[in-house]
């Protein structure tokens, strides 16, 4: 007996071995009665076999010289963490100093950094009400926030840094609302991104760093938007996340 109708998703799930044994049998019974669907499934399986026939031999190819050698100095477990942090802070401070020197003339919207830090302090520790709309409804979240701040947004992807989207909310900026995204990693550490439309009086500005009350903030302005990403981590780690956000928004 068929428990419930077979969906398109389940046909693919059958092809890719994502179904449990019982459901597999039900799909097989269904395919016997639906030859057209059976042909589709057969073709999908043939596609997968073709990919393997075409490209599996790459697995046997010797690696190009040097490909398997680590390219950058590794943060070995033997190096005391404090020493690593000190080096990173120095590097960060130097690059930050040059960064500042190059952009002394730009208007510095420090308020975006302090608003982001305050919002981070308020919302990041929240467990139950951290966000208004959670990541499951990302599409709705992004279109709602885009509409409210008047600029098309996206929730940047931060998986490379180990963070995934928790959700977002609307927060106040000086004269108009700002969009606010929250991310979390597996250890439960959170970072938050504050985005608002760029004011007409503001100029483009490259990355700046500010640290207040244990919260680090990188903030910058492009043609359309002002951004501030806040988190409790080393400056170097936060910088990497800021750059991921920049590159995602440039897509």
């Amino acid at each position, binding site marked *: 007996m068929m428990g419930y109708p077979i969906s*398109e998703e389940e046909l693919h799930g059958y092809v890719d071995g994502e179904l449990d044994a019982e459901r597999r049998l039900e799909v097989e019974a269904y395919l016997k009665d639906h030859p057209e669907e059976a042909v589709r499934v057969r073709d*999908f399986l043939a596609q997968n076999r073709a990919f393997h026939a*075409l490209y599996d031999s790459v697995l046997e190819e010797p690696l190009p010289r040097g490909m398997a050698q680590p390219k950058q100095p*590794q943060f070995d477990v033997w190096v005391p963490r404090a020493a690593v942090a000190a080096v990173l802070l120095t590097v960060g401070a130097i690059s930050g100093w040059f960064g500042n020197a190059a952009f002394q003339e730009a208007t510095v919207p420090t308020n975006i950094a302090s608003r982001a830090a305050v919002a981070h302090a308020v919302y990041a520790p929240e467990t139950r009400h951290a966000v208004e709309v959670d990541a499951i409804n990302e599409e709705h979240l992004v279109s709602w926030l885009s509409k409210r701040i008047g600029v098309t947004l996206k929730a940047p*992807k931060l998986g490379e840094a180990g963070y995934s989207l928790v959700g977002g909310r609307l927060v106040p900026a000086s004269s108009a609302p700002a969009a606010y995204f929250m991310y979390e990693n597996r250890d439960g550490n959170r970072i938050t991104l504050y985005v608002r439309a760029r004011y007409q009086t503001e100029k483009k500005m490259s990355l700046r760093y500010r640290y207040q009350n244990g919260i680090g903030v990188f903030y910058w302005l492009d043609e359309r938007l002002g951004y501030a990403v806040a988190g409790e981590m080393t400056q170097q780690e936060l910088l990497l996340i800021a750059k991921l956000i920049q590159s995602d928004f440039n897509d």
Partner: protein
Amino acid sequence: MTRVVTEKEALIVEQIPKLRRYARALTGNRAAADDLVQDCLERAWGRFHLWQPGSNMRAWMFTIMHNCFANTMRKNKHQRGLVPIEEWSAEAQIAPNQENSAELRGVAEMMRQLPTEQREVLLLIGLEEMTYAEVSEALEIPLGTVMSRLSRGRERLRALIAQPKAAGVRAVEE
């Protein structure tokens, strides 16, 4: 010169053959694929301290691969990160005496015509045998988006393969 690779580093190194296989299928070109893998590895070494032990290394490496590929595509927008069709099929590993070799060549060529986002999903699932949940993690897209790209991609590839050789023949004749 060559130093011993640590246990942690070995986690990355053991992903390399599959990254290369995927990159070859994605770009259709040996040199472009290995450049992509090289980019991806450099990024991975640089971000290694951010990788959380116990989390899925394979999904993480493919996330980086996806981002590197997106960067490459952005840099040469008009090329769409692709190689000419004759190179594409020539790069596919088809032995001349292999059974169904014409059919396989057809699949390789038609894959080229799929939108990148569909090609990625088809290959991660069909070639790399990732679960739908892993693909959702690697590409940072909701499960529903994985399913709709998979479904649309497979159907489109099926239609492309089924159509008379017209498109392919025309490309050769022109």
